[in-house]
């Protein structure tokens, strides 16, 4: 046979002769063994091959193997809806438990489970105890303020009764002022009649607004304000920036709010995108009138932005508010020093372990935060369009980073 070319010599050295589709591997081996010319060339090529291996091994990284389980969680958290056009159309699972989660959060505050109590260096603006009466529900058609009528409420009340009981149970043991308990009761009634829950403080414009849904519903249906099923939608309004929470992830074992929006100038950035419900209104599609509840104390929309644009816009933030996949215990507005407009979210990682996310007010750096008092805690910060999110939990920095990345996955 003719001499062996250098490519085949390398295949021989790499033990890949049998993979080649042509020629007889055995014949090639025999030729190399018996042909002096080819053996000499083989030696030369072998030297080159070894040199290459030596050179490459000079840049060998030390590889750390993160737990596969973390990657599995990430895979689950980000599938199947991707951050695409259709990705926005999250189907929403039973969001009623968001209400329950919020209620339970109040109950759990101060409990040993939480790594922090509210007084840990943060000013927590007055919330529940100083609630104003529930804002009137306004029908869009006639524009008149009106309390939800029994007629409108009745079809939903039946479907929501189980959740109402749960909320009531969660609320009952709360150690809060009698007034706030009554207020929460009012919210509950409001929540499960037109499926809306509103908590606002007109003086400081701090509020949570959650609209509960008990059955899976397409985001699109929500946006088109179809009469049923009940929807889920929430707004957290803060003094200096507005955060919009909408949608519940259905894939996950626990519901989680999936979107956050904020405009740093404090103005309301209304949405023109048809796939999104107009901001500044709460879709209360469970009511017969298909009306919208509106904040009595909201600013008027200034028509200049869309949901999609806001993510790209400087100063606008769009992203997840909570890490998907973990139960939401509670959230509250926080102030750092004199800077208001922050948000603190506490989620349950494991039965005895919580994750705290601090969405810092604009202009506040992680270094401005009070030092960690608890030595077992790790923290990790991420800057998102100039605004900081800090994760704290009894985890390593690397694990916290993974959690923060999950926060960013659906951006």
């Amino acid at each position: 046979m003719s001499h062996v070319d250098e490519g085949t010599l390398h295949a021989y050295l790499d033990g890949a002769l049998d993979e080649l589709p042509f020629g007889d591997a055995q014949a090639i081996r025999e030729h190399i063994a018996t042909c002096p010319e080819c053996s000499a060339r083989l030696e030369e090529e072998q030297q080159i091959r070894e040199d290459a291996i030596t050179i490459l091994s000079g840049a060998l990284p030390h590889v750390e193997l993160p737990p596969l389980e973390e990657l599995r969680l990430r895979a689950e958290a980000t599938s199947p809806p991707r951050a695409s056009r259709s990705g926005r159309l999250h189907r929403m699972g039973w969001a009623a438990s968001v209400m329950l989660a919020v209620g339970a959060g109040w109950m759990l505050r101060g409990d040993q489970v939480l790594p922090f109590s509210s007084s840990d260096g943060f000013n927590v603006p007055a919330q529940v105890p100083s609630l104003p009466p529930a804002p009137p529900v306004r029908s869009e058609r006639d524009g008149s303020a009106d309390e939800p009528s029994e007629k409108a409420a009745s079809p939903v009340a039946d479907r929501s009764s189980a959740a109402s009981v749960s909320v009531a149970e969660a609320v009952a043991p709360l150690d809060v002022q009698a007034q706030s308990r009554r207020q929460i009761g009012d919210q509950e009634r409001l929540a499960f009649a037109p499926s809306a829950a509103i908590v606002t403080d007109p003086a400081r414009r701090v509020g949570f607004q959650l609209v509960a849904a008990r059955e899976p519903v397409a985001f699109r249906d929500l946006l088109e304000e179809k009469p049923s099923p009940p929807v889920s939608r929430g707004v957290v309004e803060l003094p200096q920036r507005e955060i919009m929470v909408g949608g519940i992830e259905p894939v996950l074992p626990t519901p989680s709010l999936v979107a956050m929006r904020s405009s740093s100038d404090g103005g309301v950035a209304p949405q023109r995108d048809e796939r999104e419900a107009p901001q500044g209104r709460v879709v209360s599609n469970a009511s017969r009138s298909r009306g919208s509840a509106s904040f009595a104390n909201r600013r008027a929309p200034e028509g200049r932005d869309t949901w999609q644009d806001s993510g790209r816009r400087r100063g606008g933030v769009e992203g997840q508010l909570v890490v998907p996949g973990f139960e939401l215990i509670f959230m509250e507005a926080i102030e750092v020093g004199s800077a208001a407009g922050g948000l603190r979210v506490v989620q349950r990682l494991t039965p005895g372990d919580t994750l705290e996310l601090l969405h810092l007010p604009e202009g506040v750096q992680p270094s401005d935060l009070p030092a960690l008092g608890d030595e077992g805690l790790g923290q990790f910060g991420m800057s998102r369009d100039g605004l900081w999110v800090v994760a704290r939990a009894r985890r390593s920095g690397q694990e916290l980073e993974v959690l923060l990345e999950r926060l960013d996955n659906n951006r």
Partner: protein
Amino acid sequence: MTIDWTEVYRTTFPDLVRFLHRKVWDLERAQDLAQEAFVRALRHEPKTPRAWLFQVASNLARDEARTAIRRKRHLTLLKSETEDRQKSMPDPARDLAERERMGQVRDALDSLSERDREVLLLWDAGQSYTEIARQAGLAIGAVGTTLARARRRLADAYQEKEQVDVAR
């Protein structure tokens, strides 16, 4: 046939990081991309995970180079006491020597054509000729030839660089 992901992960992840590291030259980034590749693999459950992973990793590295996204820069590790305690003392001299060597390898690899480099890195990460051929879009018979050329160029470029450094 179900895939034993634990085994795939154990055997493939280090190779994947090694492969990616020589493309992005940032170990943390390489780790991130390898993890991302695995997250995608876990989602898609490809029939031939290893080949699939390398293909995805290669694409990720290419996208990364193209858009020069450095999301990592937004992620800043805040010092926490726990981690400070755990952190081992750095060795500046060793770090310097290591960086220098990495730089030489990088320069040598950069002197190869893109395809030669890809084939060489895939081989070095433990891919078979068949897998390399598929991923690089080569006939399997051309893999050996490409490797022979890539190895020679790498050795030549590295030696040249060394001689220049010694002469200086």
